[in-house]
């Protein structure tokens, strides 16, 4: 985490005085972007840097669904299953993904490429169903589009590209 401190310092400038505690969430997000998850050493370093009680960091990490303390697959497929998506076939989408990847929601493929997660509303109800791959929304998904998406991602990994 240490190498991110300059970034945090810049972030801090935008915040009013005495907002160190507020930086917990942005910093954790940044750390997770960097490492893929939040490790024990990151917590220790962050607590040391922000001078917040460690329990606050632990609470935040356990509370927010987007933060995690364990590594997951390279591509995090988050399929929305809330009302609007369900009404446009999200259940089929998830079932299809699950079949195609061979994992149940919440699991990671054995090769560590994909992690499939069911999530509640992603705020893309008009273009449902939606699947979020890492940060990017893939909207109006259908079985064919899904196949193509997963195949492309898998091919990219095989090619060694990003």
């Amino acid at each position, binding site marked *: 985490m240490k190498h991110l401190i300059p970034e945090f310092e810049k972030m801090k400038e935008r915040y009013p005085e005495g907002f160190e505690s507020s930086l917990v969430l942005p910093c954790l997000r940044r750390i997770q972007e960097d490492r893929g998850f939040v490790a*024990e050493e990151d917590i220790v370093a962050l607590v040391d840097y922000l001078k917040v009680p460690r*329990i606050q960091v*632990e609470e935040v990490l*356990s509370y927010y669904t987007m933060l995690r303390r364990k590594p997951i697959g390279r591509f995090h497929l988050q399929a929305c299953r809330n009302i609007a998506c369900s009404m446009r076939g999200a259940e089929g989408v998830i079932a299809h993904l699950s079949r195609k990847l061979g994992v149940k929601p919440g699991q990671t493929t054995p090769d560590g490429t994909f992690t499939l997660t069911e999530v509640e509303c992603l705020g893309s109800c008009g273009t449902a169903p939606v699947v979020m791959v890492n940060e990017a929304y893939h909207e109006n998904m259908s079985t064919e589009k899904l196949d193509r998406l997963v195949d492309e991602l898998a091919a990219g990994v095989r090619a060694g590209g990003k």
Partner: protein
Amino acid sequence: MPRLTIDGREIEAAAGRTVMEAATDAGIFIPYFCWHPKLSVPGNCRICVVGVEDKGGEWVEIACNMPVTEGMVVYTNSEKVRARRKATMQFITLNHPVDCGICDKAGECTLQDYHYEYNGERSISVDAKAHATKHYSLSPRIVLDNERCIQCTRCVRFTREISKSNGLGMQNRADHSLVRAVEDGSFANDPYSDNVIDICPVGALLSRSFLHKARVWYLKPTASVCPGCSRGCTVNLWHRRPEWRLRAPGMRAQNETIDRVTPLENPAVNGPWICNKGRDIAKVLGRARAETAMLKGRPAELQGAIAQARSLIAAARKPVAVVSSWASNEELAAFKAALGARFSVLVKADHEPEPGEVVQDDILIRADKNPNTAGARALFGEAPLALPPDADLVLVWGEGLDFGLIPAGAKIVYLNAWLQPENGHADVFFPTSIQTERDGHYTNFAGVTSAFTQCFPRPAGVADAQALFAALAGQAGGGE
């Protein structure tokens, strides 16, 4: 000062007070789980709902977070309030395992009481209860039962606001939130951690040392003073009620042990808290006892020892007494009255801080680990503990004095409650009673005097210090 009406009683409360505080002050009871007079108001248990009459009729809101306003009309037991409370109790007991049978809190559990008072019915749920971790080791001292936890967060707030260790937090969300200790283990080092057991309104937080030791209704609290440091926190010592004494073969000794220690609220000294050392004071008081008088290490009759001590005192040219800072004010006064004129008196510290112990902090713990130093010094002065080399008789009272400091050749009269090697080195040794075996008072560092009460009978052969001094003085005075 706003005037308000609660249940038809007109009361006056300072502005800024909440309805809960106003009602409590006026002696009107409003149920609560999460509210605690010494902690912040989270308003999360929702059991303290009261009805407030308004233009639009009665509406219900939680009392703990409702500031009093002029002319407010509050009902604590209206139809609506009762319905709400009942619903809330249904929610609280929804996933509570109701395993009162194996819960140490049963008998002094708020949830039990409220259930009878405000619900009294079976759960309307037919679904299986959600399970959670049953025995989570929160620290080496405390076991957490997450199923019993009603997530009032009193414990969490205690570590944030009172002990400031930030040792606990609520993790996860919804009905799978869990109280957890911070992972770096700072909760285990919190010297006040055991207070969360007391403030837990249910049996979620359990003391490991008291775990399943006894049902609380078998126990009786006796008001006492913690001798752990010069703060002199008032405590309750819990021990077996006489009517529930154990009778099985080999179990007699259990009837005269301190099963647990809880704080006895005292605004002048410790508020509602005590430190962990105070909780473990039974270990100090439960050490092996000296029960026979001795003459140079040989067991002797008490009367013979008194006679011997009298003659030693009568024969002494320069007698010095080192009095105990664990002695009660009464005993000290008795010593002063009986022998104070004959002896030059010094005060010693019976106990020094032990390694690893928190020596002092700004909450309760004081550096002086003796309960009555102030009381002793008030009677015998502030003189430093330096034994004059020409002393030919030293009367040592209580443990903790290095016998090497006593001038060679000086006779030693020793009074001690515990079984210790020094006992045999004294010319005359008297076993004395301990705090749980007598009534008395301690004066703490700030001059506040608190009383302690006898819990157990004095063992046979053990002398009462007050009577002993009178007996010693009878002859010593006569000899002069």
